[in-house]
């Protein structure tokens, strides 16, 4: 067991401060230490994307990030995207278009999609498929996930136009 480090994080807008072994993986910090269990563990090798969070503005697989590397970071998980009173447009779209089945990939999928739509607010289907290729779903065959994301993009563009 190695010496513990002093770590500071901001997770979903809340400041967190604790001592942790540097080898602790960020996904375990979130799930075990902070009880943020939306992000899941599917592969431990960065392939499946179930653990996807937004870390300092980038989509990151938190299963292969040491908490030491994340010191000082700002992190958003699925829990920070919407709440029961006001769901994120993507959360609504996934429900509406049957973009999920077992739900295990869903938090990572939606978290990644939220970043994708920030980077590219009006993606083509091809761009969605490419941009989501780091997130694996075993249930849906992706067709309705892609549909959900395109619908959310349209919805977000429409409300942005309305606001302008």
């Amino acid at each position, binding site marked *: 067991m190695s010496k513990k480090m002093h770590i500071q994080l901001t997770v979903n807008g809340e400041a967190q401060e604790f001592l942790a072994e540097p080898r602790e993986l960020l996904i375990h910090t979130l799930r075990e230490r902070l009880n943020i269990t939306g992000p899941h563990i599917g*592969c431990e090798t960065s392939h499946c994307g179930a653990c996807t969070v937004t870390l300092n503005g980038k989509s990151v697989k938190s299963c292969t990030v040491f908490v030491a590397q994340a010191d000082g970071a700002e992190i958003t998980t699925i829990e920070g995207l919407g709440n029961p009173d006001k769901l994120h447009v993507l959360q609504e779209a996934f429900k509406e278009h049957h973009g999920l089945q077992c739900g295990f990939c869903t938090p990572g999928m939606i978290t990644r999609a939220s970043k994708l739509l920030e980077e590219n607010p009006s993606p083509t289907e091809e761009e969605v498929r490419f941009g989501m290729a780091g997130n694996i779903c075993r249930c849906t065959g992706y067709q309705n996930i892609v549909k959900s994301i395109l619908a959310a993009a349209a919805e977000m563009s429409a409300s942005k136009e309305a606001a302008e």
Partner: protein
Amino acid sequence: MKDDAGVTREQRVEALGGMGCKRKRVEDARFTQGKGNYVDDIKMPGMLFGDFVRSPYAHARIKSIDTSAALALDGVVAVLTADDLRPLGLHWMPTLAGDKQMVLADGKVLFQGQEVAYVVAKDRYIAADAVELIDVDYEELPVIVDPFESMKSDTVLREDLVAEDGSLPDGAHGPRKHHNHIFTWEVGEKEATSQVIDSAQVVAEETMYYHRTHPCPLETCGCVASMDKVNGKLTLYGTFQAPHAIRTVVSLISGIEEHNIRVISPDIGGGFGNKVGAYPGYVCSVVASIVTGVPVKWVEDRMENLMTTAFARDYWMKGKISATPEGKITGLWCEVTADHGGFDACADPTKFPAGFMNICTGSYDIPTAYLAVDGVYTNKAPGGVSYRCSFRVTEAVYFIERMIEVLAIEMNMDAAELRRINFIKKEQFPYQSALGWEYDSGDYHTAWDKALKAVDYEGLRTEQAQRVEDFKTGKTRKLMGVGLSFFTEIVGAGPVKNCDILGLGMFDSCEIRIHPTGSAIARLGTISQGQGHATTFAQILASEIGLPADSITIEEGDTDTAPYGLGTYGSRSTPVAGAATAMAGRKIRAKAQMIAAYLLEVHDDDVEFDVDRFVVKGAPEKFKTMKEIAFAAYNQAIPGIEPGLEAVSYYDPPNMTYPFGAYICVMDIDVDTGEVDIRRFYALDDCGTRINPMIIEGQVHGGLTEALAVALGQEIAYDDMGNVKTGTLMDFFLPTAWEVPNYETDHTVTPSPHHPIGAKGVGESPHVGGVPCFSNAVNDAFRAFGLRHTHMPHDHWRIWKTANKLGLHG
């Protein structure tokens, strides 16, 4: 017609959200917000973590295990080995297939990754450190990874199955031919089939390997065992597709009385067959919790999941099919060599050691057939589960759908036409197959014609012929394949008279409680792993009992509250538990009818059910809604009727259901890179009555994608030393959004005549029908160049090799 509230009948139907509507899923609110509750989300005070020392060798004797350094590590609570489990009789456990399996290595290991010791520590990091500190001294033994070699080898894999005098005691399925042989299972008429084939004018033969793969749900297997020593109760949370069966098994092997065991399947992150069986991790966690008196969690990582828990397939299938010169099939012969790994842990109904492989006559009227399956031990992981299929149906359908293609090549016939002239005709149902099944209903010709028309089949063949010409003249390097598949599934296991697992009849159950204010809870013996049971079972009930689906809670997975059932796999939830739900609903309705008649002051027979109420016959303005009836059941003393409104049904299905479908895939294949581009995939499914078209479509998309994976690259591969070559998601192919096409879905509806609502089940059809469809497309692309058959998985490298062997690289 409008009733007194100005609401039309149609509006009342719509308000129920019953069968046939595209009801949105009630599960999604929690899943989209990251509030699902999966097994690894469960935290209990004082909870410890378990982790395994696993064998790096595929076959080795264990000379010693030194746990001292691990035990000396701060935070390590215990280390279990077979020696610790032996006094409890838990160092071995029974498998679902009538064999037994080591929980922890008892003197030797039989596959790479086998469980050798179980560490219990304060957190998962300490447990992982301790695993590294355990020193196991192995003596390597000869490794066998080929079932044919195994049947010839002098090396004995399972000494425990050889008597002291060297004789071979019978296995669970009869006599054994060799010390590495598990069983022979024969169905059909051997002599007659042999005669028909030997004397036939046309015979096609082919041997095909259906490679080993893995269901690989995104969530791996795991559990939390919590033994409360004060009240003697064991609570076991876990990724169980069959929670009640797990409770019974745990009771039988641990000696804890069943009423003192509560098994809970929380949300499950996909199953696909991987979570049917009982694994050493469950047993060790239970023992560890009993020993330590605190909860113990075990969750496998992905590599452990792929290497050790429940593989699928691994069938070598040798076929012969005979026909008249006109193409009418006269006989089918199928010999299977099944590689079951080190222990026979197949998940099949007891009387079916090769599952429903005897559905291999497919959708065709084949008068004579014979099937023989030999199960064989090798140094590979145990398992043999139904990966998104009903007990080896995927193997059976792949076999027949490839044999049809091979026969078409042999006869120089169009494969679509060959299918058409051999389909079982609509008027032949119920149809008795040569290998012993009674198909309930079907209209194959209608489905086939609809599918061929939808894709302009003749146009595709014209285009394909042109492509071949263009290829030959150097205008293109891409070939075009048209994949056909017409499948008949056999699901909904099953009738208790011939279907049981470990002696437990494969019925299922539903219990309904109607609350006084007109809402309800229904509990079932099944457990959803993404199928959306909370949504669809409420729809069945809404239509049956006339209360809105939104007012009905569906609960599954807690053995303390749910009625006994055999769980969710083999597409059995809708055919069996769905039937139980309808039948329990009808019991509710029968009592409601009596209450309504009392309230309306007429005879029971003078009221009839209408959507959400009972009306007086001929006087629809006189009625009592189900909501009113529910309240009356709790607040009125009705002569001759007990208070309350509850019902339970245990449904023993009279027969299996036989969903079917027609799939067509169009792909382009780059001859120089082996890459495939799926241009079009059309899927027509007939699953009988359709409960929720949105969910059906989602199931079809998902099943087809798993089929694409299996056909085009997914495999559990071993090297000669028994090393798993595909133990991570880097090597084990799971398609991403980038590789997957958009699918076109379609349907016909041929209800099951014996199911209360006519539903047949759909979750596995797309996988069963999809695998041969993708594979046939690849094979078909090369047909013009002389290819008869090439084995799956058709990854780019293998396709390139096929093209190379055919001389297409110049």
